[in-house]
């Protein structure tokens, strides 16, 4: 019976080692769970951030595509350098009717078909004893209808003739109507803005957000009327240029820039005193903001994961010491240093990856719940998204953490002398 035998390749199969490692984790379930919790919390945070970021992006994309692909917005002042800088844009006074006239000349901007200025009017609207503070915008109602697909429920959107005549007409949003007139319609009633009476010619249905504006809380009056009677100003807060074809947007952007630099007498090398924004540019800005936010939060989470990894290393060292006799025995029955190293390393990596998987579930569930709450309590149409890059990245990163923090305890285990390990009490 004790005969010589053939030695095949005697490499331990990975699947067997995985089984061993799983068994090792299974013998101390509560310790395993607490240890992987450190990783799981970090990963849950990453996944929640990534999912909420993707959801936010989805919302903003929906808004931006509502802007239409064929419009270009021009704002006064230099381009905003960030969120906090946007205020400075609205107080600049560099855009006037002269600019619009120049842009609408075919020889300057051949693909511009229309341009509409907008001004912001501060203050309240009153009707009888009711007062409400809406967002009052001076601009063309017909233009708004055509560009943003906003149609009145009752009445009409006033047109260019009203704008030219500086007519005292207004289109009001759903919530404005409700605040001032209750259940009845305000159509053809007279509302007062800064002491001047306006006739309500159109009432909008409930729309929520359109192109970043809360349309339900909006009152729209002709910009000419607003500038002459309410504001006493000749500059605009923004104007929107409609381009004949979305394909010509990029070209037209350059044409507008050249035209405005000319009308503003800017020297070559001087910075623009206006900002041109296209929907795609807007998207880029949004992405930049979201990306920097994500990177910042991920860095914080990475630190948390490293702390979790140190916890893993600590527990693995304890485990290696506790299992000294087991290591000695395994070596006595034929385990190589490599077998032991692989077993303990895989155990650490499985621990972190289980933590990662658990974190993905928790983070995903959290983001999903947040989405449900957003849809329930706001008018936003939130779509739950779980970016697969984040899921994959989290799993790879936790694997990496397991590798980095598992290697030291695993090496320590593999180098134990079998005889000393067997004698260990």
């Amino acid at each position, binding site marked *: 019976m004790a005969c010589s035998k053939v030695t095949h390749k005697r490499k331990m199969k990975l699947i067997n080692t995985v089984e061993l490692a799983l068994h090792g984790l299974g013998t101390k379930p509560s310790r395993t769970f607490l240890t992987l919790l450190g990783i799981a919390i970090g990963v849950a945070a990453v996944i929640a951030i990534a999912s909420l970021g993707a959801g936010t992006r989805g919302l903003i994309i929906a808004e931006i595509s509502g802007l239409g692909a064929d419009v270009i917005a021009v704002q006064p002042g230099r381009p905003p350098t960030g969120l906090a800088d946007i205020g400075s844009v609205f107080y600049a006074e560099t855009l006037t009717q002269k600019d619009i006239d120049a842009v609408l000349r075919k020889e300057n901007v051949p693909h511009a078909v229309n341009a509409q200025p907008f001004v912001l009017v501060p203050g309240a609207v009153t009707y009888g004893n009711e007062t409400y503070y809406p967002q009052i915008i001076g601009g063309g109602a017909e233009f708004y209808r055509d560009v943003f697909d906003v149609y009145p429920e009752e009445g009409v959107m006033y047109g260019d003739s009203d704008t030219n005549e500086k007519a005292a007409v207004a289109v009001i949003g759903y919530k404005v109507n409700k605040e001032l007139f209750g259940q009845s319609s305000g159509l053809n009633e007279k509302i007062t803005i800064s002491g001047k009476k306006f006739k309500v010619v159109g009432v909008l249905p409930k729309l929520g957000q359109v192109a970043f504006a809360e349309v339900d809380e909006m009152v729209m009056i002709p910009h000419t009327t607003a500038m002459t009677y309410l504001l006493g100003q000749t500059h605009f807060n923004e104007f929107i240029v409609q381009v004949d074809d979305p394909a010509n947007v990029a070209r037209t952007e350059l044409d507008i820039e050249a035209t405005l630099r000319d009308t503003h007498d800017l020297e070559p090398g001087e910075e623009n005193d206006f900002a041109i924004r296209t929907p795609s540019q807007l998207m880029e800005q949004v992405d930049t903001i979201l990306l920097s936010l994500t990177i910042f939060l991920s860095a914080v989470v990475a630190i948390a994961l490293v702390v979790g990894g140190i916890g893993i290393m600590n527990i693995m060292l304890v485990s290696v010491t506790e299992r000294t006799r087991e290591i000695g025995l395994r070596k006595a029955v034929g385990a190589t240093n490599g077998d032991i190293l692989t077993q303990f390393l895989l155990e650490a990596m499985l621990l972190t990856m289980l933590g990662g998987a658990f974190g993905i579930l928790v983070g995903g569930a959290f983001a999903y719940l947040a989405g449900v709450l957003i849809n329930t309590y706001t008018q936003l149409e939130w779509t739950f998204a779980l970016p697969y890059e984040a899921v994959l990245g989290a799993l790879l990163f936790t694997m990496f953490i397991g590798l980095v923090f598992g290697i030291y305890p695993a090496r320590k285990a593999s180098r134990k002398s079998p*005889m000393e390990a067997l004698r260990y009490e």
Partner: protein
Amino acid sequence: MSPLIEAIDLTKSYDDGTRALRGASFTVQEGEFVAIMGPSGSGKSTLLHILGFLDPQSSGTFRFRGKTLNEMSHEEIARVRNEELGFVFQQFNLLPRQTVLSNVILPMYYSSVPKREWEERARTAVEQVDLTHRIDHEAFTLSGGEKQRVAIARALVNNPNLIFADEPTGNLDTKSGKAVMDILKSLHEQGHTVILITHDMEIAKHAKRMLYIRDGMLESDTQT
């Protein structure tokens, strides 16, 4: 053909200055049943560690099938431990929270035995030590005699040439000890080489040959 084990003038000193072995020379042929006898502290356990590739000697030559430790790679040594040697320890050294079956399967993890044969081979080994009725019990629930029989099954499962038994009955009552010795004897009859380490003359009598160690030196080598 070279002997299974060839020991020439083996010594072993530990870091604390203890000289556990002071020159032991002997050979063991395949198929022998040898008892290494001696009072406690005589160096017999140290000798076993050297012969079992668990700890290297300080000087002298130890050849296994004609090869010294230095001529073997780390992987080769692990392979010898796995395929050619089986250990039965006084402390049993089972994995307490695992079943008898998994304890016996353990050496096959590191062997070339295909996984589908593991369970059957383990069951056969457990049958040989007459523990089939306990096969699914966790090791810590067994009595000392049963534990030692599991350890023997584990030592057998890869069908090694050489079985080392280090005071296998040291922690057992007389009856369990006898059962363990009967198994070792039958293994010898099946052709395995058995090296038994004990301080107990009654136990040593089961072997065919006795090496008596005292103060780290081989005092006598007798056939019984």
